[in-house]
């Protein structure tokens, strides 16, 4: 079973915690609009980690 977007990001940046993903307080916001397009990164303003590229995400098994 392939990893979801959240799991892929945690795999790339293992030091991230749930607090980093919290609405309003966190700096990484993942969203799913229930329109069939799946999970996506709505915003990424983490102070030290750059937003992973699609290639990086695709490389995570």
């Amino acid at each position: 079973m392939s990893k979801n977007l959240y799991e892929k990001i945690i795999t790339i940046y293992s030091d991230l915690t749930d607090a980093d993903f919290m609405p309003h307080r966190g700096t990484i916001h993942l969203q799913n609009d229930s329109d069939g397009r799946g999970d996506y990164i709505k915003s990424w303003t983490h102070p030290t980690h750059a937003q992973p590229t699609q290639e990086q995400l695709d490389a995570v098994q």
Partner: protein
Amino acid sequence: MTMILDGSNGITMPTWTTANRPTNPIIGAQGYNTTYGGVEVYNGSTWTLVTGGPAFSAYLSSTQSITTATTTKIAFDTKIFDTNNCFNTSTSRFTPNVPGYYQINLNVQGSSSSYSSMQIYQIYKSNNPYVKSDWRYQSATIDTGSGDVSSLIYMNGTTDYIEAYAYIVASSSPTVSGSSTTQISGSFVRGQ
């Protein structure tokens, strides 16, 4: 346009559509707007609906799986009522056709097969977070929680819309519960 007072059939007010309102109204002018289905009054700068207006209620009919730590739109797919046909079950979106202030209510129950450390439920206005429930860290022995959110929200009657989103952190299988435990409702309160 005439007003009829015949002493037996009530007061019959002038009627018009939104597109065919009086062109030079004076303050206090009023009539029945057939587009909105209610009586409106001119306040000197705009028309304000004082009766009627949209009201709706909808619920999630079956359990919706979501990804942990991912803000996910709740797919309300069944209407209980929808007076002005403003709630779309395909998009789970309420787009009222009358400008004014609306009371919006959201009740959600979330679960997971493991314990859930955080649940946040939000009302979105036009794709942006507007108001949310309190987040919480639950006991490790509890896997189900609920949130209630309500707010009075101004809607412009054309492009503004309301949606609801859920955010659950759980180590496995977070879900939003279906049937009566997850509902959204709203009603026109007053004009602009």
